């Protein structure tokens, strides 16, 4: 196999590069042709109007949608105002994400229907308590920089679950959150909750405490809710993730380059629309690209193509200078088993080495259907290892230690030297759950597999006493917003019990 040595730059940080600049430009100009020649279908008049006023060609208008074609100069104009950096800060202002080129941040995934119960191991419908549990795990582990709702709350009302799971997350973590929303009303309610949490609009402007996840539909379709959410975010200083989820061979070409062209066209439409609505609107483009498994038909979360596509897309977004949404820490395994650990390790390492920005979906099993606390705890340590690799090797006269080598000479040892004493803690990474004891001591300590130690840590986190993050009045006020939403939608509600 050919190895592209030129991919490796001389730098303090090890770096991976998948696409050359020529390849990136080829993909970029191809996606401009898709936008102009094929066009995208937009299912919201409001969005069609904004695009049209900005110079787009509108064709084939039906009762529900229009085909919108974007001339290349519109993209150039949008690129001139789209921010190269987006900042999201947690309610605890120490937790800060500065999303720009090569800054890596890891966080959970969102909205899985199922959760592996931490006590019984059973796969069951996710609940409010599950969502809170995952948020507490994210809060406890240092390598999680943001969080998403690992589990759709299904013991709350079906049409308003988004508010409830935001509340559950706020109970568990004070880190930045990437929320999802049922519709624009859901975004509005959650913004109201966020303003209560952060202490008003001025504080929000200093640093929004959530971003909104928006997912256009591949291929090349932008639904009504998606467009409405995008415009609402632009109008209300809300950073948002605009992430298509194309599937090679199913909702995108089977060839990875073809998928990248299509995904970029989908993202660029988001950039154009947002910058037309409000120049400087804070968009993060992503981020979940994979292949369909041609036997099982599942969306692969652990395939090498998933990691490779995410990495390639990062190269493109770095070239565009737009913050990027990325995927890692996830697997197609059904349990936290060897496959899960292997797939998560591969995609976490790839996402770190490529320098993806907002790397989500840590904790996903079962092709995005099941959330797993054990995978989240295990991935924290994988991320820690990757971060050590990313630190690289400092090469200076001091670190090359010629004097020390001369002093010790042939046959001596370095264990007692000051140089060792002073450097070993910063130079040599130390594991937390990884076991390195010799056989005898490992046996003495219970002879546990990694999975058992990971699980013990899950239980330890869940059963630890932590001070509540929300005071009672604040919690009540936010809960009231959820209840009012429930009341407004009471008539549409399904029997909640059928879900749990």
């Amino acid at each position, binding site marked *: 196999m050919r190895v592209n040595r030129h991919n490796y730059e001389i730098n303090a940080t090890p770096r991976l590069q998948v696409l050359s600049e020529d390849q990136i430009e080829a993909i970029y100009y191809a996606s401009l042709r898709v936008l102009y020649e094929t066009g995208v279908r937009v299912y919201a008049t409001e969005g069609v109007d904004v695009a049209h006023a900005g110079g787009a060609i509108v064709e084939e208008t039906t009762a529900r949608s229009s085909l919108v074609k974007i001339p290349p100069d519109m993209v150039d104009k949008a690129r001139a105002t789209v921010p190269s950096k987006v900042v999201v800060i947690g309610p605890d202002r120490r937790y800060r994400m500065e999303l720009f080129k090569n800054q890596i941040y890891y966080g959970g995934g969102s909205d899985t229907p199922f959760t592996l119960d931490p006590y019984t191991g059973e796969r069951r419908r996710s609940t409010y308590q599950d969502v809170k549990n995952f948020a507490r795990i994210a809060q406890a582990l240092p390598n999680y920089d943001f969080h998403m709702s690992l589990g759709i709350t299904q013991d709350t009302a079906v049409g308003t679950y988004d508010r409830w799971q935001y509340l559950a997350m706020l109970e568990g973590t004070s880190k930045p959150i990437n929320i999802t929303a049922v519709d624009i009303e859901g975004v509005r309610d959650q913004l109201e909750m966020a303003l209560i949490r952060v202490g008003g609009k001025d504080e929000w402007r200093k640093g929004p405490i959530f971003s909104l996840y928006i997912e256009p539909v591949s291929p090349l379709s932008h639904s009504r809710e998606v467009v409405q959410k995008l415009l609402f975010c632009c109008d209300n200083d809300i950073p948002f993730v605009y992430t298509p989820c194309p599937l090679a061979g199913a909702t995108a070409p089977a060839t990875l380059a073809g998928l990248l062209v299509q995904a970029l066209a989908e993202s660029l439409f988001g950039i154009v629309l947002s910058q037309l609505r409000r120049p400087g609107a804070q968009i993060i483009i992503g981020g979940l690209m994979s292949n369909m498994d041609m036997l099982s038909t599942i969306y692969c979360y652990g395939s090498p193509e998933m990691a490779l596509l995410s990495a390639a897309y990062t190269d493109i977004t770095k070239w565009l200078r737009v913050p990027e949404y990325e995927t890692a820490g996830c697997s197609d395994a059904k349990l936290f088993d060897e496959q899960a650990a292997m797939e998560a390790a591969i995609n976490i390492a790839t996402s770190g080495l490529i320098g993806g920005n907002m790397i989500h979906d840590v904790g996903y099993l079962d092709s995005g259907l099941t959330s797993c606390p054990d995978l989240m705890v295990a991935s924290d340590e994988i991320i820690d290892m990757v971060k050590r690799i990313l630190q690289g090797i400092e090469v200076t006269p001091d670190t090359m230690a010629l004097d020390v080598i001369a002093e010790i000479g042939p*046959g001596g*040892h370095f*264990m*007692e030297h000051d140089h*060792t*004493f002073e450097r*070993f*803690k910063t130079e040599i990474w130390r594991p937390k759950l990884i076991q390195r004891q*010799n*056989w*005898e*001591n490992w046996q003495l300590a219970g002879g546990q597999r990694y999975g058992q130690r990971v699980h013990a840590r899950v239980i330890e986190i869940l059963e630890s006493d932590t001070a509540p993050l929300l005071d009672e009045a604040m919690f009540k006020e936010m809960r009231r917003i959820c209840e009012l939403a429930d009341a407004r939608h009471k008539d549409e509600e399904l029997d909640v019990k059928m879900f749990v």
Partner: protein
Amino acid sequence: MSEILKRMSSAVIQGQRDDTRQMARDAIEGGCSAEEVLYQGLMPGMDHVSGEFKAGRMFVPEVMRSARAMLNAMEVIKPIMVKNGIRMAGKVVLGTVQGDLHDIGKNLVGMMCEGAGFEIHDLGADVAPGQFVEAVKAFQPDIVGMSALLTTTMRAMEGTVQALVEAGVRDRVKVMIGGAPVTQAFADRIGVDGYAPDAAAAADKAKHLIAASR
């Protein structure tokens, strides 16, 4: 008096290599006996270090510093102990066996045993059976410790034991072995008295062997 001993324990724990000699002198001048310095000052500090190391809260370079802090103090009190006929924890002759140049593990064992109050005679690496025999005769140790990293050189352990038997000194000493490929089962097969999987365990094992034989 107990104040200086406490400070000495703390200096060992902190790895204050440059302070402990003077502290030992001050303690002796202040009326402490050499035994008190060892068993109420240095050893409690080193025991604490050993516990922290086993618990994963202290690391090799730190333990090395603590051991060195203790050994520096030992330089002051050892001549006094010898003069007064006070026995140390025990004497250990240590070496990596013939054909094997790997000595980092053996060095670790030496430091750990010194930290536990043993007197160490380190014969180095690639030590022939005859050299072990000579060392037993010369130093009169309580324990002979052998190290090997290679499965091929493990065989030299058995040969060295035979050499000790043939020289008629096998019964005078306890023999301990260790090294990455070595196991308790191998130790049993070649008829030695002790095996330890790592350096900290080796120091403990040495103490047990001495306690059992006295």
